[in-house]
Structure formats: C-alpha cells, structure tokens
C-alpha cells in the first residue's frame, strides 16, 4: 500500500513525470509551512493580545497563510489524486471506456483550471488597488494564489493526460483497491 504521508506519492506512478516530483515535494513542504505559520501567528495573536500589546496585522498574516495553504494543497492533491471524490467508479473500469472517462474528467478539470488562471489573474490585477486594513497589504497578496494554483492544477492535469494516453490510466494499485473492496 502506498505511503500516503510520503513527500512524493508513488501511487499512479505511470501518470507522473519524474521531473515534476520536485514540484510535488515543494508543494507538500509549503503545505506544512502554511499550517505551521498560521498556527504560530494565531498563537502570537493570542499571546500579544493577552499581554495587552496586540499586533493587529497578525490576523492578516494568519488568514494569508490559511488561504495560500488551501490553494497550494488543492494543487498538491491534484498531482497526488488525493481530492475528495463522490465515487471512484473509474477504478472498476478497464480499457478504452476507462481511458475515455478519465480523459473527459481531466479535460473538465483542465477547463476549470484555465478559468482559475485567466479570471483569477484578472482579479489579482484588479485587487492591486484594494488594501487590507490596518496593514495596507494589497489584496493581490492573498488572491494571487488562485491563478498560481490554477497554473499548477493545469500542469498536473496535462501531465496526467499525456502519461495516461501513453501508459494507460490503470495502475497496479487500482487492482489492489478493487480486490480489497471485494474481499
């Protein structure tokens, strides 16, 4: 069984380029950094408030790391196939029908990712003129993560489409999972 806590998940290896393993590892590290940083900033917020010298900008640091973490995690989960699914019906399929559905699914994700990039970028540019009080940080600092995550999701989806087309979408772990479920 794959080590789900590994920096680079070895499940569905046939859908991955080795070159992008480092990106996945960096994203996982960033996930850890984001949650560690907003834990620390939330702690400092409580401590400084209790001491009677509140640092008001800490709340903005906290929410920034929180929001970045969500979108960085969304990108990492795309490469690791770790998202929530309503069903994993495709894992029970084989051959051409499976490939067809897997390709359609990834094209849908790709279209969404492109929308995130294009409209997210427009929003980020617009947000250069909006500022968070009291630190006066441009809102773009927060919202720029949306198109950035979109780029990564698109990249990983293209990686899976190309490799799935070449190597097939079925992996040995699918057979294991089906066997486990049928036992």
């Amino acid at each position, binding site marked *: 069984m794959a080590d789900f806590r590994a920096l680079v998940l070895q499940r569905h290896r046939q859908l991955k380029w080795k070159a992008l393993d480092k990106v996945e590892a960096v994203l996982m590290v960033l996930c850890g950094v984001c949650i560690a940083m907003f834990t620390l900033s939330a702690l400092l917020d409580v401590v400084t408030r209790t001491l009677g010298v509140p640092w008001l900008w800490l*709340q903005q640091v906290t929410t920034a790391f929180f929001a970045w973490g969500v979108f960085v995690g969304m990108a990492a989960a795309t490469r690791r196939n770790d998202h*929530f699914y*309503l069903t994993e019906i495709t894992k029970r399929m084989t051959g051409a029908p499976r490939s067809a*559905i897997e390709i359609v699914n990834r094209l849908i*994700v790709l279209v969404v990712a492109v*929308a*995130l990039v294009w409209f997210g970028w427009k929003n980020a540019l617009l947000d250069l003129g909006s500022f968070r009080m009291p630190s006066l940080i441009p809102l773009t600092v927060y919202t720029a993560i*949306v198109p950035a995550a979109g780029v990564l999701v698109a990249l990983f989806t293209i990686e899976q489409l190309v490799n799935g087309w070449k190597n097939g979408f079925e992996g040995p772990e699918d057979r294991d999972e089906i066997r486990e479920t049928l036992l």
Partner: protein
Amino acid sequence: MSAPAVLLLMTLLFLVFGYMGVPVTFALIGGVLVATLFTPISMQSMVGQLFHGIDSETLLAVPFFLLVGELMASSDVATRMIRLSQTLVGHLRGGLAQVVTLFSMFFAGISGSSVADVAVLSRTIAHDMAKEGYDRAFTAALIASASTMANLIPPSIMAVVYGATGDVSIGGLFLAGVVPGVLIGIGLMVYSYFFGPTGVMKKRAPFTEVVVAARGSALPLVIPVIIMGGILSGWFTPTEAGMIAAVYILIVLIPALNRGHVKELPRDFMYAGLLYSLPLGAVAGASAFGWMVAFLRGPDIVAGYITAFAGNDGTIIMLLLVAMFVIVGDFIDAVPAIIIFMPIIRKLAEVGNINSLHMGVVIITTLVFGLITPPYGLSLLVASKYVGVGFGKAVVRSLPLYIVFLLTIMFTVAFPKVVLWLPKQLLPESVGCFKAPSSTGYICPP
C-alpha cells in the same frame, strides 16, 4: 433560460461530473461556471467568490481541529485512551465493541474529525477485534458509526462550518451537539451489548488498573477542558481554542508521552496541511455554488415547495429537511452540503420560526448519518478500506445501527428543550436569550 432551469442544470452538472469521477471541488466549480454563462454574473466575480468563500477567520478552526486529530493519531498518544476505555467497559458483553464506542466518545472531545477517529481505531483495536472473532464487516460498521460522534461532541468541524456560514454561534452548536452525540454513543453500546458479537468475556479490571489507566490518559483528556473551557469562559474563540489544543499537544503531550515522535512532526504538519486543503477546497467551490443558488432564488423555490406541503409548521418543515438531508448526505460530503444548502436552511428556519441553533444541530445530526450511508458514506468507506472488508458487506452490517441514528435524529427534532438545555445554561445568547436590562438574568424566547 429561467432561474429554476439554470439551478437544475448546475445541480445536474455537479452530480454528473462528480459521479463520473471529477474531484468534488472541480465538479462544483465546473457546474457553477457553466451556470454562470446563463446569468448576468461575470465569470471573474464567480472565480473571486472561490477565494471569498474561504476568506474567513472562523474557518481557520477546521485545520486546527484536523491538526489536533492528526497529531493525536500519528503520535500514538490516543492508545492511552483506548487502554482507559478497556479498563472501564472491556469486561462487558461485546467488550471491544464497547471500548470502540467509549473511546470514540473520549476522542470526539479532542478531535473534530471522524476520519482521524477511524484511522486510530482501525490501526489499533480492529486487529484485536479480529483476533477475538468479531467479523470484519461489524468492526468496520461499528468503527465508522462511532467515529461520527467526532462531528457532534465538541469540537466539531461540521459545527464550525455551519456556524461560520450560517451565522450561528459555534460555541452553542458545540454544546447542542453533546446530547445527540452521547445518545448515539449510548445507542451503539446498547446495540453491541444485546445484539453484537459476544467477543471474549473478560474480568472487570481492578480499581488500581483503572486509576493507572486514568492517570496515563490525564494529559490527553485535558484537551476537551482547554477547548470548551476556553470557549465558554470567553478566553478564546473556537479557532483559537483549536490552535491552543494543537500547541498543547506539540509542547506538552508529545514531549511528555512520546518524545520519539518529535522527529516525525514536520511530516505530520505537511500531511495535515494537505488534509485541511481538501475540505476547504470543497468549501471554496461550494461557497460559489451556494452563492449562485441564492442568486437564482433557490431558497424561495425550495421553500415554496416545502411550505406548500408543510405550511408554517416548524416541526414538519424540519422533518422534511431531515428527509432531504438524509438523501443529500448519501450523495454529497457534509461540508459542501452545508454551504450549498445554507441559503435554503436559513429561509426555511425563518418561515417555520425555528430556532437557528436547533435547526443547526438537527441538520448536523442528519448529515452525520450520511457518513455511514451508501454510496458516499465517507467514514464507512474509510473504515472498510482500513479494516479490509468489502464496502457492501460493511453497509449490510451497518443497517441495524441506522436505527440508532434515526432515533437520535427524531429525538433531536422532537425535544428541542433537552437538546438546547446545555447551551441555554452555559451560552444563553446562543439560543436567542438576551440580558435582562434590570437584573443579572436572561430573557429567553419560549
């Protein structure tokens, strides 16, 4: 295209995408973006809504409670609480089944995540249950059912999400979840005692053993006191209480009870960072979806259908909502379901003059049931996978346990005074009471 038609199209697209195997987050966003094409709303503002959906300080509590669950599960500190449960109820008929339920009640007071509870129990006690002859399907069904208490007994991630999106007191929802949570626990213990496998009967643990086990669990059991004590005393918000609990585990619990785990902490953080992004990514998509539902006057449409049948009767409205959410919970994860349907819930609470806290705890209890019902019973899916049994077999063994959940839901609907008693005593404002101008007491709605 008319508003109901766009609403229908958006919902159908989400379900079709989702059941084809598109991740929930992208299925939600995909459905919303297509629907946006048929409205005057710009794509840019809908994509902006994804960010605004998670730009909430209250939702920060979700990663903290997930982090707490992950740290407790991975550091093996939770096994001390399993030992305590064994000394307390291990001698009863179906001893290990009783232990599973009692431990889940303890663990629910620490973690807000059912999946963390399933992970701990599957890694530890499931093996012992197999050795004692409990069939795997029953083990998976019981672990999954017991784990649902994590979303009722405070802290609860569902309560955080419901409170944040529905503008309902999270502290109040935490307290109101205690009664249904404990009822489910008692129901599962009663079922295991009379109808579950017998297991290996053991002698009652001597008092000294109970004391030793209680002493060993004392440090972890401080966490519920920190969380609820901090919230009720007004020292912390629910978000801060989650953070303080995580910090307590990091600087007190792990160094004191499992020092060797310290080197694993970076990995815990990375994995917890990934884990929290999954529901919150879905929250981002669901908030855009919910926004569109509200824009298309979905609440008015659904409220129209429901009031045509139920009139303004709060109880009937609530029962119809329960029926609706039993179905919804079968197909959609609870967190996006809460956000998508929140505009409709609020509208119906207004029409039926239902206390918002009562409505919240009924909806959460109903959605908790969805964690063990097919086809999308997340807890049961995870438990059957970990325990190594087919999902279908686990579903069959869960069927009698559904009665416990249905009775609990009915109790929660029918006896609001019992369910809301605790929040009324400890957080009166959360049930709509306000301070009397001339005295220190509160004036509460009937």
